[in-house]
């Protein structure tokens, strides 16, 4: 196992923008996702919010599982088919089964993975639990997605930006409002990556939820969650991939992206996803 040396204290002030406090009395994105996936690292406020959401949008449970499965298939594709050995996972979430480095290192043990999250609980759990295969390496960066400067400079300690990198931003861009320029943030990260790098995104689809469910969902989230969720349309989703070539089958719902033939669970999620390659 290689280092996960202290990367926290020097995160710039910009990195603190919108950082969630350690507060278990309001629902929190990472813990909501953990609960949807069947994890135990969540608190009463998270469960109450999820239970309320599932009443208006019952497909959210399937969506969370389908997103997790998409992560597995995309990372496996990147490691096995595309030969990627460096990963930058922005928006790590609470560790559960099949984390990025485990999927990648199962294919290529020497894979190096840098995790980025701004949530203190996620970082504590990630540092403790996401331990690398000894042939590879993992590292953790305490930074907000909006602070791309910190992310790139710190990730550069473990990743070699002259070699292709796969950047994953799964279920994270939908907490970034338009006023923070999410497309520009993605472009800043991808501009730093060499040709042959990849970008994977999954995102709440504003055009995948019906009007009623969307309003109910928005109301619950506004009332009870630390982060807001901004659904985006297929067209807005495409903007994240400007200048990149989409890998087949292109922009689809997460469960439709190269599904495993033996997938037991079927359903219809509310999440768009795509994988793009930098030419």
């Amino acid at each position, binding site marked *: *196992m290689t*280092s*996960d*040396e*202290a990367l*926290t204290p020097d995160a710039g002030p910009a990195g603190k923008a919108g950082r969630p406090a*350690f507060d*278990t009395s309001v629902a929190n994105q990472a813990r909501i996702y953990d609960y949807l996936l*069947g994890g*135990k*690292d969540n*608190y*009463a406020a998270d469960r109450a919010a999820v239970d309320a959401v599932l009443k208006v949008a019952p497909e959210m449970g399937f969506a969370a599982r389908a997103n997790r499965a998409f992560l597995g298939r995309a990372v496996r594709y990147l490691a096995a088919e595309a030969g990627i050995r460096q990963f930058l996972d922005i928006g790590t979430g609470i560790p559960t089964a099949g984390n990025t480095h485990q999927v990648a290192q199962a294919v290529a043990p020497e894979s190096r993975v840098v995790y980025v999250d701004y949530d*203190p*609980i996620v*970082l*504590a*759990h990630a*540092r*403790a*639990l996401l*331990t690398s295969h000894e042939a590879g390496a993992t590292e*953790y960066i305490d930074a907000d997605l909006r602070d791309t400067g910190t992310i790139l400079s710190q990730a550069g300690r473990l990743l070699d930006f002259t070699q292709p990198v796969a950047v994953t931003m799964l279920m994270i861009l939908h907490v970034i409002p338009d006023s923070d320029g999410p497309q520009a943030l993605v472009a800043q990260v991808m501009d730093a990556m060499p040709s042959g790098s990849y970008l994977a995104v999954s995102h709440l689809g504003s055009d995948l939820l019906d009007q009623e469910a969307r309003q109910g969902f928005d109301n619950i989230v506004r009332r009870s969650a630390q982060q807001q969720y901004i659904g985006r349309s297929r067209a807005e989703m495409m903007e994240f991939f400007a200048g990149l070539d989409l890998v087949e089958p292109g922009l689809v719902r997460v469960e439709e992206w190269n599904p495993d033939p033996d997938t037991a669970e079927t359903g219809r999620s509310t999440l768009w996803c795509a994988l793009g390659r930098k030419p």
Partner: protein
Amino acid sequence: MVTVGPGGEEPFPDLAESSVDAAVLRMMLGTQLRRFREAAGVTPERAGYEIRASRSKISRLENGRVKLKSRDMSDLLTLYGVTDEDVRSKFIALAGQSSTPDWWARYSDVLPTWFEPYLGLEAAAATIRSFETQFVNGLFQTEDYARAVTGLGHKTIPGDQIERRVAVRLQRQDLLRRTDPPRIWSVMDEAVLRRPIGGRAVMRAQFRHLIEAAEVPHVTLQVVPFATGAHAGESGSFTVLRFEERDLPDVVYLEQLTGATYLDQRPDVEHYLEVADELSGAALTPAETSQFIAQIARET
């Protein structure tokens, strides 16, 4: 297929290979018994009366902390109106399986009764999270350190009993070498490292042992340095035992001099988990922790 219970679900789908630890089995049986009892609207007092035991015995049974005789299982199932012969025979057989002797049974002369349930829970846990303010976590103590600690509280106890206590502590550590070891995530206050237990040589060996333990993939050690100032763990040491099965409530273990408290109500457990998360966030990272221990070892 056996159908059973309020939800009509099959009991213990995970037990197909029945390789499961006796302690887990007791907990699963207990959880299922509680469901039966509640569905039948039977009070714990009434259930206790049925098997010539107290209300608290029922509570301990349902938490999997005591062994269940096949005859008591049979009587309780009857009281709860479980008449399906397939279900009954499965439960009665499992009750027999769950009371196979535990390895620590032969140390019962030196084990306080309040500590025995901990050994079962520890062996059954998928994740063990602890915060230590005083001593190195028992799972990572060297033999000499364990002997020094054991001697402290028991000045009047004969030497051979101390050796038996040390033997129990070392045998607990076998779970670290299991094929499916639990994930152990232990945060300790810097005071644990600074308190010279057993002298310099013992402490130096203990530091080396900790640094080695931290290398094990399923072990995470973190130190909260004095420099952190006041922290969330002011109330003292605690251990949270977490189980893979969603049905099994996690348990907080708090030890006192003459007894122990086991908390399994969700709000209590979550409060401790919250503190554990905060402590882990405030602590040195695992990599920094190993360097920190090495530094203290050089100063010792």
